[in-house]
């Protein structure tokens, strides 16, 4: 356990080294939020398409969504790089759990982004976009829980994509497709409530809305209390299912590695 804590710490420190990258992604998040809010404002003025929904609720949705996306950004090519260079076998040669190693590495940089990007950007947003506070304290706690689960859902989806590099070697296209699917189906870009019913029905069957949509709805107080419990259970079930798939793929991948030699 100590080892994985150290790993997360090192990964956290590692993020500090790339100062230029830090400011770039902070500015990037703010600009994206700005542009998206401008678009929604324009739509609202042109067509009144928001159907009576308060604009500041929508703005809060957009801000929270983009801030979460910034924090949930992961190193998509970490495993691929190790597979392609063959370094994966030296990592397997160490007496530790490789998957926990990768996870700690990602958690370390997630914590970094949370403290160094989420919090300042959040404070800035309160001031710039008049961000709404969480619906109430209880909802804030549910939001935190659900956001953590959302991270785990995304992590396990990502892990499946990463692990496929054992077979494909280059996963750029796959990562791009995955990113697009997450962007659209998770409600990260457009709140799912604006989508056609058939698409909503489809999204209900996927793990994607468990990433951003569920926690944001809870934050906004737009999910009835009796549904919150079910949504959280659903998140947990998706984590288990996706972890299971990742686990099987991982076993096969290491089998392939030790039989075919990379």
């Amino acid at each position: 356990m100590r080892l994985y804590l150290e790993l997360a710490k090192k990964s956290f420190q590692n993020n500090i080294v790339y100062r230029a990258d830090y400011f770039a992604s902070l500015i990037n998040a703010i600009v994206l939020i700005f542009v998206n809010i401008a678009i929604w404002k324009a739509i609202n003025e042109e067509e009144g398409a928001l159907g009576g929904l308060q604009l500041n609720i929508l703005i809060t949705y957009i801000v929270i969504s983009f801030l979460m996306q910034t924090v949930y950004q992961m190193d998509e090519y970490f495993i691929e790089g190790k597979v392609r260079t063959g370094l994966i076998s030296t990592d397997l040669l160490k007496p530790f759990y490789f998957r926990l190693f990768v996870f700690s590495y990602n958690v370390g940089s997630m914590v970094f982004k949370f403290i160094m990007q989420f919090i300042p950007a959040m404070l800035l947003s309160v001031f710039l976009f008049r961000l709404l506070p969480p619906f109430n304290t209880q909802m804030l706690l549910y939001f935190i829980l659900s956001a953590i689960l959302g991270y785990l859902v995304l992590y396990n989806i990502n892990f499946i994509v990463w692990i496929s590099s054992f077979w494909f070697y280059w996963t750029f296209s796959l990562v791009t497709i995955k990113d697009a699917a997450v962007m659209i189906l998770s409600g990260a870009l457009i709140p799912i409530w604006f989508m056609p019913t058939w698409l909503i029905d489809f999204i209900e069957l996927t793990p994607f809305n468990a990433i951003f949509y569920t926690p944001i709805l809870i934050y906004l107080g737009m999910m009835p209390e009796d549904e919150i419990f079910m949504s959280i259970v659903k998140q947990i079930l998706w984590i288990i299912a996706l972890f299971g798939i990742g686990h099987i793929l991982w076993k096969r991948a290491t089998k392939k590695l030790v039989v075919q030699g990379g």
Partner: protein
Amino acid sequence: MALIEVDDLVKEYQLNVRHKGLLGSIRSLLIPEYTKKVAVDSISFSIEKGETVGFIGPNGAGKSTTVKMLTGILTPTSGTITVGGLSPYKDRKKNASRIGVVFGQRTQLWWDLPVADTFDLLKYIYKIPDNVFRENMELFSDILGLQEFMKQPVRQLSLGQKMRADIGAALLHNPEIIFFDEPTIGLDVVAKEQIREFVRTVNRERGTTMLFTTHDMLDIEKTCKRMIIIDHGKKIYDGTVEEIKDKYGRSRVLRVEFSEYIADVQLPGAEMIKEEGNKKWFEFQKDQTQVSRLINTLSQKYGIVDITVQEPEIEGVIREIYQGGIDLNETLSGVS
């Protein structure tokens, strides 16, 4: 039982058959075809605790494949391996904590972290006690000169620095056995010597067992007593370095500097192989011609400024073995 026992070890790789052209590649995609490539072909050997063994052979002979199987990251197709009583691929994690591995071709240090951080992490990975960690860090700083670049990220290190850091990293947890796969590749003479010295020290002071793969025969001469040669996946020699040198290094070269230019030197029992100004080189077989007789003949007839006898280098012997010039199946005790 010996520390490392390898018995009838075989490794076959599966190779995808790729067809040429667009249609061909679509065909390979839809109907994969495989051929087999035997990389290691029933090799057996055993290594005792404290031994230093050079594991050599031409490119593609199967050395790295064997080392990978010994470390547990590759499963054998057939045959058995035991390392300290364990099967490396079945008990990979347990085996891993008792061995150290250095792959010269790729570093096992984490790219973005400073060297010191990698060492810190290794301390936790191998659960190294504080005092052992401190002791080793001191020793490595001394012999390998690690303190020069401890704070630099690994990606900024030169090849030689990376290799030294890698060797330190592999030895940090006091492994019983160390596998080196080309640890001196691409290094300059001084760095090579430093690494050999380190290897010797560790072997002498800790009795660490070592298997050493390299293409530099000087590495073997300076660090290993025993040598295993493989070619095309088969073991062709297993014995002492001395013996192979003795048996096959029978030719000697006599380098003579004359006081004046002599067009034609007659020297029975030796053959001139090179000449340069007043210097001439003669090759002779040490079991057929005595050096003293050659020197006598020369000094009686000509004025001589300088004379030296050159021993054969193991490098030349090995080159001849690889090229098939020496048939090991003669009389050597180590031949299997």
